[in-house]
């Protein structure tokens, strides 16, 4: 039992790293545009497909393909902001949600089409091999790299939000009109936010891709589905807090893994069940989030 719990916690934390990258992007975009971005995980899958094309199909070096994947994800994020979010900025939030879902579905459709000949693919790892085996579960170097990237990203975001452009971004998110009056371009800030969020999504995709084989829609509903856990993590952080989102992602990762304990052994989909009831309870008992003191979402 202790071994099982240990395995669940370790696996949960490493999966939580991917969820955290997705959740950070969701929180950033929610703060900037007030929309639940259903395309967030698709930025990741699209970046993963681009990186895969670089490494495997075109034989580029890994670092170049990695950057190419991030660039493609970022381009997709910027295009989404320009073509969908900006024209719909006066529409209601549910309309915007349907719009981002449309972006996700368009990306999935193109991925299905383009990967038709070989639907299931395998992205090579950055570093092969297993670093340690606590409780008999394998911790790969890929997992450690993901954790390292998450720490670097979190630190970079913390520094960035204290820099002038980071402060401008926060100002524009809190009060757009007032920010415009003191000379901040809300339009540019919105673009910047979507760009950063898309890069975060791309990181999640390219780093988590090598863990499993991937298909079209890998991060949205495929084998490495991170969209729903990412949303849950963001909700646990009250949709606005970034440290809250990271903590929430770890919690969601561990709770999902608890669903695969042997006491649920007779049923499949224990993880999905745990997540559904956990989300329901959190939203009903503490709708403002677990890791924040006061409700800030309006």
């Amino acid at each position: 039992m202790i071994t099982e719990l240990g395995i669940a916690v370790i696996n949960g934390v490493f999966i939580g790293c991917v969820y955290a990258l997705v959740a950070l992007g969701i929180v950033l975009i929610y703060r900037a545009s007030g929309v639940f971005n259903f395309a967030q995980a698709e930025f990741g899958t699209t970046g993963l497909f681009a990186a895969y094309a670089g490494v495997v199909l075109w034989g580029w070096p890994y670092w170049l393909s990695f950057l190419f994947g991030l660039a493609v994800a970022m381009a997709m994020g910027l295009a989404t902001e320009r073509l969908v979010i900006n024209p719909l900025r006066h529409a209601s939030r549910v309309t915007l949600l349907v719009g981002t879902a449309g972006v996700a579905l368009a990306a999935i459709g193109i991925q299905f089409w383009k990967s038709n000949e070989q639907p299931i693919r395998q992205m090579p790892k950055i570093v092969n091999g297993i670093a340690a085996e606590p409780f008999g579960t394998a911790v790969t170097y890929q997992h450690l790299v993901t954790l390292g990237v998450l720490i670097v990203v979190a630190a970079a975001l913390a520094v960035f939000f204290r820099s002038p452009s980071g402060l401008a971004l926060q100002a524009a998110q809190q009060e757009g009109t007032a920010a415009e009056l003191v000379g901040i371009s809300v339009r540019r800030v919105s673009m910047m936010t979507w760009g950063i969020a898309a890069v975060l999504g791309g990181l999640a995709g390219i780093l988590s891709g090598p863990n499993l084989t991937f298909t079209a829609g890998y991060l949205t509903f495929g084998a490495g589905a991170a969209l729903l856990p990412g949303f849950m993590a963001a909700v646990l952080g009250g949709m606005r807090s970034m440290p809250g989102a990271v903590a929430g992602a770890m919690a969601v990762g561990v709770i999902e893994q608890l669903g695969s304990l042997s006491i649920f052994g007779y049923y499949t989909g224990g993880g999905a069940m745990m997540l559904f009831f956990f989300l329901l309870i959190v939203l009903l008992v503490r709708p403002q989030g677990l890791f924040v003191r006061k409700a800030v979402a309006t």
Partner: protein
Amino acid sequence: MTEPQTAEIPKTESEAESTRELPPVVADQLDDEVAPFRPGVAGWLARGAVWALLAWVVFAIPGNVLSPFHLGVSDVGHASKAAIFAIIGLSLNVLIGYAGTISLGHQAFVGVGGFVSAYVVVDMGLEFWLAVPIAAAVGGLQAALLGAVSLRLTGLYFALVTLAYGVFAEETLFGITAFTGGEGGKNVPRPIGFGDDYSFYYLCLAFLAVVLWADWRLVRTKGGRALQALRENPRVASSYGIDVKAYTLMAFVVSGIFAGIGGALLAQQSTFLVPETFDFELALLFVLMTVVGGLRNRVGVVIGSVIFALLEEGTLVHLLHIDGFLDSTIGLPAEFFGLVVGPFLLLLTLTLYPGGIGQQIAPISHWLRGRKFDLHAGKVTEVEVADVRA
């Protein structure tokens, strides 16, 4: 001159003060001008001809009656699927269009309806005619349970709960082998008398007609008017004494019932049901076809659903004979046409034609109902989906 006035005033006052009988609300009062337009004989003939043509397309062609084409069994199967998708589209329209609440887990409702119907027919050995009401009831019941718990949340958070419910149903509920048959799926026999695809198509049409009628009646009841009010502004609605939560729950239950019927028919149509059919992608497709069809526009939703159902496996592309063209120019196989083009249709709908297909066909549908042909009929400026909290 003064006498008739004094005689009039008490009468009107007493009429105004009497609350027992409210004057009937005349619908479409603004649309009728001083002298309403009446088409001439030629106009009626032209409209009648178009109606007859429509009826011929819907009723005669799939049954190979009085038609120069010969449709195979698989084509008629697609037609049945289109009718079922129309039922599902109407089900989502009740929720998104009338109540302004979005569900991203509608594939779960359809799937539960399908598996319940299959269970009733296969494992309990009951008749199909009993399975459909049971599936509808279970669909309504699960909507009532989920709604009672989670409708305290509104807007985006409710959408998130439905999304989580959809994934839960897909992975956990449909993973129960005793209920769904597991990975191997389940064989569902068709009802007696509707075994072949041609007669089954008419059965689906009949159910679609029933759902259309129920939807039409729903809008005209007290509940329908309450939904309209609370969608526009829930706070104002509740200050007028409308129980926002109760009526939203009602819409959710109605939507669940329609989805259950759609699921039961889908189980019979495919005759072989596997849990993998009901994934999140299907939920997105349902939302897509409803919004592209045009919220709150029954005809538009039906047309949108039919188009997406036919696009799904490339049937429409085959029928239009453009598959070779698409394959040679951009290398797009017909079966991916809907998946690739559909989302772009959605984005175009949201940004340019918020009224969807319903808005685009409004001039024709108004003309068919005996009005003047007006290119600018039915213009909608924005997809008005309520934005409650969050």
